[in-house]
């Protein structure tokens, strides 16, 4: 039993789940914005990165860890709200490339400002739990307290989002505003606020992700922290379907596991290539995602 738990396959699965949880969270934050406002947010990695610098930067003033996490989340809410109000709102109803280009510009600016203020030298973030794998009979099992924390966090965040959407009055209004903004307004839903809220939620989910990423891969917090992760997150979201929070997290986790096996058994330089192939093939099979219910196009 011990040898099974420490076997290559199990440790690949566990490692894949950890990476996949991160991909899933990025995908989830993309889905939140997409559902609310039909914008694919290319600054989805950069906005939380900025919030994380603002919040976790307080660690150097000896603020307690969890307080810094709280400040990061508040900063994320504020950045999300400001972005939606100032940058995104004027773009509703414009050709679909306009928001794409604006968000790319925003991404460039945020990363440049972060580097100008905090420099490109990585900052070390403490992991709240040990990042060292548990062992069984002297062999690592491919799972550390911190990676378990990552997986649990991803599931909790997804659960919270699903609960919010499915079972609360607020969630009902959020969904309605995304699906039928005009009808929702006629029923008294403050759609503008709901869209803003969608961006706030998404940025906060992003900030959770950014903090995990910055503590996890031994690369520390840098302005380009989320660049690579964003691409994998997008692939997960596109494969899962941009409309489905559960689909996004699920496909993120599956993607993580597949790529872990590719890295281990094939070559770790092939990870990106395989991810790209998965994306292209799945988009050819189901252009609106493998895990969405309907494939109808909105006109």
């Amino acid at each position, binding site marked *: 039993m011990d040898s099974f738990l420490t076997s290559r396959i199990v440790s690949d699965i566990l490692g894949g789940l950890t990476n996949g949880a991160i991909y899933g969270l990025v995908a989830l934050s993309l889905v939140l914005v997409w559902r609310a406002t039909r914008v694919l947010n290319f600054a989805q990695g950069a906005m939380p990165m900025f919030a994380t610098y603002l919040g976790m930067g307080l660690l150097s003033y000896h603020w307690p860890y969890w307080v810094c996490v709280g400040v990061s989340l508040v900063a994320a809410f504020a950045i999300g709200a400001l972005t939606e109000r100032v940058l995104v709102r004027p773009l509703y109803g414009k050709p679909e490339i306009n928001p794409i280009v604006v968000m790319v510009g925003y991404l460039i600016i945020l990363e440049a400002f972060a580097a100008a203020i905090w420099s490109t030298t990585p900052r070390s973030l403490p992991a709240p739990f040990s990042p060292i794998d548990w062992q069984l009979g002297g062999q690592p099992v491919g799972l550390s307290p911190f990676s378990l924390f990552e997986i649990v966090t991803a599931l909790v965040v997804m659960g919270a989002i699903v609960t919010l959407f499915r079972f609360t009055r607020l969630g009902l209004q959020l969904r309605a505003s995304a699906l039928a903004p005009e009808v929702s307004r006629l029923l008294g839903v403050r759609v503008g606020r709901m869209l803003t809220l969608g961006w706030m939620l998404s940025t906060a989910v992003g900030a959770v992700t950014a903090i995990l990423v910055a503590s996890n891969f031994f690369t520390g917090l840098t302005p380009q922290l989320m660049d*690579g992760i964003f691409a994998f997150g997008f692939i997960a979201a596109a494969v899962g379907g941009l409309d489905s929070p559960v689909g996004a997290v699920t496909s993120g986790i599956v993607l993580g596991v597949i790529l872990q096996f590719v890295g281990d058994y094939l070559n770790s330089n092939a990870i990106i290539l395989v991810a790209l192939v998965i994306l292209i093939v799945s988009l050819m099979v189901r252009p609106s995602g493998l895990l969405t219910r309907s494939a109808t196009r909105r006109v």
Partner: protein
Amino acid sequence: MAISKWRRVATAGSALLLCATLATAATSIGDAGAASKARAPKVPGVTARQVTIGATVPLTGIASSGYNQVAKAANAVFKYVDSKGGVNGRKIRYVLEDDCYGTPGFGCTGVPNTVTQTQKLLALPVFATVGSLGTPTQDLVRTLLKKNGVPQLFVNSGSSDWNDPSQYPGLFGWQPSYPVESKILAKYILSTYANQNVCFLGQGDDFGTNGLAGLVAGGVSPVVTDFYSTTSLVATNGASIAPYIQAFQNAKCTVVYLDTIPGATDAALGAALQLSYTPHWVISSVGSDPQTVAAPFKSLGVDPEVGAISFTYLPTPTSASPWIKWMYKVIQADPTDFPGFTSTSPLNGNIEYGIGFGVAFVEALKAAGKNFTRASFLKLLTHSTFTQTPSLAPLQYTPVNHQGLNAGQIDEVASATSMKAVSNTVYTTNSKNGPVTVVKRLSSGIPAWLR
């Protein structure tokens, strides 16, 4: 219908004819330009009071952390020399262009590639490029600089590409080549970790392949060899390194040799930490600077690099070398680029590196005398041995060897900020199958005019 078709064909034909005329005219005009450009100043980049030199370095992007200090440290040397009246009455203007190491990444948007940035240096013009960073990046501009007759000095890389005098007479390396370094480290591995399994991880370019070649030439045959790609490293935030480390653990390697840049060193050490895998680490000087490597681990309370073996061709900060004191003085005199640097700040490998080639350049310039040209400068350099220089052993160039340094000592990462020498023996060897020998004649102190 038929008529309009013919009309179209005729139009296209006339367009092509015009283009042909144009090509003719265009190419013959080239001569006119050449003639007008021939009247350039005698020594580009050199006036009676100033020498302009330049470099392309990563000031932004993935490779910028740590490496962005190298050229600034060289510049600190130039500023220090300038404050003492310059070299032969000329001050040194050092122009740095950011090329982002040519790496992809959102953070480098709008930053042009190395070639374009080098062109900007040519436009100034510069007398030479000095200390430009990177193997792939500098490989890209070798031909361009040669074509324009611009010396390419002290390239910040240990690739053997810089030692090709017949093809590139103006190209000079500075640090010991990767094979030399790994051969000397191989000797250490053989004597200290005899009969242990060695695994090798290298960068997927000259850096990794040259390093492995030296290791093998030195008698160490790794049981597993892997090469990572920098682009994958960037895209996966270092996660792409983990499978290699896992494989090393599975192969029961007790010694792991890393030919990695600091970001990849971090990823490798981090992955091993996660797996509770504690081999003896042997890390190339390129990726072993304690301060840079320790940064992401700071909050963990553990620095997995402590105890790792590395190589250096410069005095360790804890040594008694007079150069160390001088380096502190030089850096403290430049608060613009090194704000808050005090006598207790750690002197990292990147700063030492920059000071090292900075001093080499001012010494060469001093030796070249008041009146020099590019040709006379290069001729002098190829017949020079600098014995009063920060490197452990003298810096020597010959008409057939442009590599530069070829000796160094084994050192060990003593803490998150410093290295200590394992022994004070300085070794040398060649890039081929020559033996590793002990250097008898070491560099001496600081020349009086630099003190």
